């Protein structure tokens, strides 16, 4: 049963990618929608299986690590798989309606979409460093392709820039992987951990970790390596932006976090942890500040991503040489932040896309009067904003609460200030949008009204982000399930 689920999860996207490559946009859309259904069912099934029986290691095709593909199927991974299924299907559905079928190059959207999905699943479930790398590359390349679909010269420029950043990041990561392999002779993270438990830490292995984390930080667009992100996310088609902001950057962060949690204690040091936290804080402040100053709606949302990603990196200081319970709180908080940001940001980009479609302009000040004639999309945008501002009862709030507890519990009170200031700064740019839309216009309704389904999708996502806080205990309890140590040892 699990075999089938895993096979479905990893290979359906690839199969669909190939399948849609052969079709035009309209047919691709039809096929994709069927595929989405399959993926959702499979993801849900896997999630249910894990939440019933607990996590496990799974050697794909019977090949054990270090040679084969080793999958690590635990609560966290299946939660992210499910998250991916939700967000990606929402984006796929939205894109099917949103993207113009007449432009010939748009037919490549579907294959790229599916490649991206398969890459994401590979990363969530990947258990060894090289497979993670492959998944990461798959993601990066398809993401660059998706950005380039914007079609205009600006989109191409942005995608090239994105490509360069991604390659540079991959390079650094690969270097780190090579160093690790050289020192430990294994690519499995569990293997490395096992090795480190037996023997003293070899000199220079910290460098390997640093290289990997730096490469991943570049891919995640951590301040000050964030410059590639806003143009790429801003100029892409809205569903694409949603995918990129919600999931793609999370994939590289996920790897970095896994590495840190497993290897950080032996290989990292306090200064590095605090340094990363500081960069994250700078990202929160700087990203929010820039978001306040953008004139274009999607740029605001894109810079908001930079800021929100900053929170994620607080994981590093908050899990380094602290008590078990504080570390757990921090991990839970960051997990919630990833999920809620994914849902909220996807909702926000999709809603922003709708708003741009309606106002026929991408500028913030074109929103005047929107609240009167297009309340629905604006409302989705607003609800997503609630989660970004980390106000209750959203998932963002639950995440912030846990991080606050972790900061206070570990005595690192300075992160409290960052968390609170970040919330206020995000309020500043979210309310800037509200403000623009509440300004009343005299004239009659001159807006284009997008179809209902376009409007409903971001609303669903936003409501999920909002409701996440109320059920966060259940969500987190799936992650805390016991792990069956059977795969590698």
């Amino acid at each position, binding site marked *: 049963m699990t075999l089938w689920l895993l096979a479905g999860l990893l290979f359906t996207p690839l199969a669909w990618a190939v399948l849609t490559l052969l079709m035009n946009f309209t047919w691709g859309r039809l096929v994709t929608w069927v595929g989405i259904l399959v993926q959702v069912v499979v993801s849900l099934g896997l999630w249910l299986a894990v939440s019933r029986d607990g996590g496990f290691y799974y050697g794909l095709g019977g090949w054990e690590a270090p040679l084969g593909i080793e999958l690590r199927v635990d609560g966290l991974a299946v939660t992210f798989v499910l998250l991916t299924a939700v967000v990606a299907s929402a984006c796929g559905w939205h894109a099917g309606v949103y993207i113009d079928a007449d432009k010939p190059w748009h037919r490549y959207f579907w294959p790229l979409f599916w490649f991206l999905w398969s890459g994401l699943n590979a990363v969530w479930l990947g258990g060894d460093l090289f497979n993670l790398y492959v998944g990461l590359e798959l993601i990066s390349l398809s993401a660059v392709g998706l950005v380039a679909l914007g079609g205009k010269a600006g989109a191409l420029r942005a995608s090239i820039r994105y490509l360069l950043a991604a390659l540079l990041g991959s390079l650094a990561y690969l270097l780190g992987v090579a160093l690790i392999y050289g020192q430990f002779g294994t690519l499995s993270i569990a293997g490395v951990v096992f090795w480190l438990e037996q023997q003293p830490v070899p000199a220079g292995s910290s460098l390997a970790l640093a290289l990997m984390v730096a490469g991943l930080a570049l891919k995640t667009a951590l301040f000050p390596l964030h410059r590639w992100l806003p143009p790429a996310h801003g100029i892409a088609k809205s569903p694409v932006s949603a995918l990129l902001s919600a999931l793609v950057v999370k994939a590289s962060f996920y790897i970095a976090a896994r590495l840190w949690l497993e290897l950080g204690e032996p290989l990292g040091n306090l200064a590095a942890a605090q340094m990363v936290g500081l960069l994250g804080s700078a990202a929160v402040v700087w990203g929010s500040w820039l978001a306040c100053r953008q004139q274009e709606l999607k740029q605001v949302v894109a810079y908001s991503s930079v800021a929100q990603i900053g929170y994620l990196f607080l994981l590093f200081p908050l899990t380094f040489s602290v008590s078990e319970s504080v570390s757990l709180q921090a991990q839970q908080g960051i997990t919630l932040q990833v999920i809620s940001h994914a849902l909220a940001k996807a909702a926000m980009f999709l809603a922003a896309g709708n708003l741009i479609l309606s106002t026929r302009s991408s500028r913030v000040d074109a929103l005047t009067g929107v609240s009167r004639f297009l309340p629905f999309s604006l409302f989705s945008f607003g609800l997503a904003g609630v989660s970004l501002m980390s106000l209750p009862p959203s998932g963002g709030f639950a995440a912030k609460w846990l991080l606050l507890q972790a900061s*206070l519990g570990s005595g690192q009170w300075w992160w409290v200030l960052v968390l609170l200031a970040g919330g206020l700064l995000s309020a500043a740019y979210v*309310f800037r949008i509200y*403000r623009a839309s509440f300004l009343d216009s005299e004239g009659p309704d001159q807006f284009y009204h997008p179809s209902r389904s376009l409007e409903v999708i971001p609303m669903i996502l936003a409501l999920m982000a909002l409701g996440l*806080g109320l059920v966060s205990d259940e969500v987190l309890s799936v992650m805390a399930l016991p792990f069956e140590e059977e795969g590698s040892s």
Partner: protein
Amino acid sequence: MTLTAWIPLLALMTSLLASLVIFALPEKGYRLRTAVNLGAAGLKLALVAVMVWGVFHGVEYGLSFTMVPGVEFVLKADGLSMMFAGLSAVLWLLTTIYAVGYLEDSPNRARFFGFFSLCVASTMGIALAGNLFTFFLFYEMLTLSTYPLVVHRGTEKALKAGRTYIIYTLGGGAVLLAAIAWLHGVAGDLPFKEGGHFVDADPDMHRSLILIFVLLVAGLGVKAALFPLHGWLPQAMVAPAPVSALLHAVAVVKAGAFGIVRVVHDIYGLEASSALGLLEPLAWLAAFTMLYGSLRALWQVDLKRRLAFSTVSQVSYIVLGIAMFGPVAAVGGLVHLLHQGIMKITLFFCAGNYAETLGIHRIDEMDGAGRRMPGTSMAFTIGAFGMIGAPPLAGFITKWTMGTGALEANMGWVVVVLVLSSLLNAAYFLPLLHRLWFREPNGSWPHERHWGRLETSAWLFWPPLLTAVMTVMVGVLASLPFSPLSWAELIVLREYYPDGS
């Protein structure tokens, strides 16, 4: 889930669902929307009435579940929460009626009523919250749901006011969150409990407890408009009258004051707060705010701004009442939670009526309006005298109880403050009344409208009259069971003698 868990949840849900339904209804569905609005308000009133009856007889309503690891989401109905819930349920019904009339023919009604219901749902949540975390949840929800109401007009001025409002309240919210999180770190998840949690607090904790208290009061003080955090309140006056009424009487300002009551009574406990030396400074701050608000009100020429500064002053009565260490004073503070709501909503309804019917916004335009709008002006007069504290109206009961309490608590200076505040209240309300009744109108009204038989639309006419009658009744009948005074006494009895002796 049992019935006792369902009822508070339903009370919360009535307005929440109403809000969602209203958002979904088309703008033109006027009748259906009004029906949903009034139906939900009536249903909620009934549910709250059931709970009031139950709480009086010792039934425990509530539910809880773990929301975030280590933190419970708790809804609970106790005496204090029923006081606030009752206030919001009654005044919501009236304000809804009023708002239906007030917003006749204006755009964006679906949006308005949607957020309006959401706002009341938050208020309900604040009332029923069983711990600080849950309280904070609804507290921030309130902030968000009132913003669209404040900026409803969509003018530059409204948006500016909205910005000020949001800066103040979100800032306050952040401070509050920090305080709650800190407290949680220090002491764990604390449910609201009569008598508080820190009676025998470890002396090592005192320093952090004091700091946390300061942060809590600062965070809550923004909404309660304590000096110097009151700046948003007068600006928020650009909102439509029903919103101002709700903001001042029921929702925002009261939420802050209610929160302070909760912190002092049910988190720290009166004895512990007093032992930590927290109450005396709070009392001074409240007293200063009382006088400051009144003084500022004197110089306002815009009617609603004057009322706003009056609110700044009046809400501090509540804080002052609980900051005096003594049961009678606490009764005075608590009872003002209701009394101020009823009186202030009357005044704002009336101000709205003048604006809507005659186009009067400034005080010097009010000359002779009493003859043109006797019903409204009568209500206004009663409300104003109530604020001054003239017997036998609601405000008198407050002042009398607080004064008695102050003497009992050996804080004679409070009586001086009360008297001074009353004098100032008289100084800024009585000239208004003189203008209303004894001046001749100067020419025509700025913008007059006619509605047939009554002086104004029936939707606008009855709510202020009803609240004016309530202002008289809660004063005259203060000793009846279930009157605000009796209810406040019940709460304080349970607070001071938690074991029911």
